[in-house]
């Protein structure tokens, strides 16, 4: 497993982590919201805008060809990264939210009829709830929800019951952003497929922690964001199986996505361009390729083992407080820990942690229905990445001791 020296070498690649915040060395524990960027990603953005910037796929000039090649090379890298069968099954979006909205809009136009249902789980992020609500409203369909156990795991028998004939799609998260639960996604997909129901997986929180093989998972759609996996903000991926993507109507109209346009009729371009209307985010897509390389060089085995160790350590340390309540106690968790200390409001704890240079997320984490389930206003959430250390966790524990004294 990675030792302190290995981690120190990784940390050195992240210039932002060297900062002081409120006079203290920054401790960045908000990685589930967004990760920091390694120098290679920052350099690639700089390199793109310094040497290559131009519009892609149309220009015959040198720069355009260079940028087009780099852009398509990035698509190839992502294809290999998640083991998609075809390169054109990788669609670049703005992020997970846009990927889900794309499917919610196009899939429902093609397949959703009045009385049908879309199935989600009780632990979804708002971005895997609201797009489906909008689609269901428009099509007079129903949104149904798989309930969860108090430990933050899916109630599997309920999932099976809800996969009935009315169900047209299951949209479910791979990893809960609030609880850290890693769903047994392969088993869930298999169960849905046994009932002939396609599956969309929200992989936003999984992608930086778990090796994804979309052919092995066999899901119809897999969505993730670049910025949660060390890549720039504003770029994301929608993976979709070729045959189903071909059946869906376009999401947005514009340049790039067309084959022929007359005022009477437009024919659409092939995959993946059919779903990439307008000028894409070329620079950030190229940056994403660097982030994939960064992750691949470390390797998911090392990442998972090291982050799991951090999670275990943080859990044990937090459990020293007798009045701590940890939300999300599934056996299989990503490096996310949500808690409330005594009766201290998460907002109060968050303000003081910030004053001590520790960045955590406080609030409902865009999972209000989940907060209602636990009957709490929110939690403090610490989420760890490959560059975090046990010393930083110890500093957070010391800070929480101070906070307890302040709010006693």
């Amino acid at each position, binding site marked *: 497993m990675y030792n302190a020296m290995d981690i120190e070498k990784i940390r050195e690649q992240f210039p932002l982590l060297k900062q002081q915040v*409120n006079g203290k060395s920054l401790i960045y524990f908000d990685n589930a919201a967004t990760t920091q960027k390694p120098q290679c990603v920052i350099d690639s953005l700089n390199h793109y805008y310094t040497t290559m910037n131009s519009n892609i796929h149309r220009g015959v000039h040198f720069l355009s060809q260079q940028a087009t090649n780099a852009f398509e090379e990035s698509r190839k890298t992502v294809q290999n990264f998640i083991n998609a069968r075809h390169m054109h099954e990788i669609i670049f979006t703005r992020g997970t939210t846009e990927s889900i909205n794309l499917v919610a809009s196009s899939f429902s136009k093609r397949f959703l009829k009045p009385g049908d249902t879309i199935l989600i789980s009780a632990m979804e992020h708002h971005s895997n709830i609201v797009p489906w609500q909008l689609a269901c409203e428009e099509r007079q369909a129903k949104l149904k929800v798989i309930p969860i156990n108090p430990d933050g795991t899916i109630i599997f028998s309920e999932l099976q019951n809800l996969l009935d004939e009315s169900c047209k799609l299951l949209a479910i998260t791979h990893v809960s952003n609030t609880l850290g639960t890693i769903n047994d996604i392969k088993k869930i997909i298999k169960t849905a497929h046994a009932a002939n129901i396609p599956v969309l997986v929200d992989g936003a929180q999984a992608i930086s922690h778990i090796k994804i093989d979309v052919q092995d998972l066999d899901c119809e759609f897999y969505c993730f964001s670049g910025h949660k996996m060390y890549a720039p903000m504003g770029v994301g991926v929608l993976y979709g199986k070729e045959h189903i993507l071909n059946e869906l109507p376009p999401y947005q109209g514009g340049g790039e996505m067309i084959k022929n346009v007359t005022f009477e009729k437009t024919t659409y371009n092939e995959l993946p361009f059919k779903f990439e209307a307008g000028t894409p985010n070329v620079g950030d897509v190229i940056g994403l390729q660097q982030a994939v390389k960064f992750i691949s060089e470390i390797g998911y085995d090392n990442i998972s083992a090291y982050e799991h160790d951090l999670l275990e350590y943080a859990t044990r340390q937090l459990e020293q407080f007798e009045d701590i309540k940890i939300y999300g106690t599934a056996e299989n968790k990503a490096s996310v820990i949500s808690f409330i200390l005594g009766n*201290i*409001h*998460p*907002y*109060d704890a*968050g*303000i*003081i942690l910030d*004053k001590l240079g520790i960045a955590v997320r*406080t*609030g*409902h984490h865009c999972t209000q229905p989940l907060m209602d389930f636990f009957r709490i*206003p*929110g939690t403090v959430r610490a989420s760890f990445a490959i560059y975090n250390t046990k010393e930083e966790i110890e500093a957070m524990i010391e800070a929480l001791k101070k906070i307890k004294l*302040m*709010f006693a």
Partner: protein
Amino acid sequence: MKTYQESTANIIKEFELFTDWMDKYNYIIELGKSLPLIDEKYKTENYLISGCQSQVWLYAEYKDGRVWFTADSDAIITKGIVGILINALSGLSPDEIINADMDFINNIGLREHLSPTRSNGLNSMIKQMKLYALVYKTKYESSR
């Protein structure tokens, strides 16, 4: 009766005593404890100021030409911050409240709470207090 200038000058003076952020926040926590609490019957959805992370209930009464505020919050720092606003504005005339520039917030180093993030409702609190003042002015003073 104190004017807006007097009450805010007082707040600034209090805060000048603290050089350490920890002391400042301890003071805010203490302020929260002496907040004129809202009557339990008003702790409903109607009196809730929507902020993303903590709940704040605010109520105002009009007596003899002046507006008096009461409030509560489930977060202690927020309670202290409402307390500061109430110390500044409660007991003033509707016109004084409507015209208050609220600049003192910068002087006491709580500007960060004014940032347009979704995490706090300071802007919404001020807006709501001014709205109360405007409503009472219209209701009781427009015929003058």
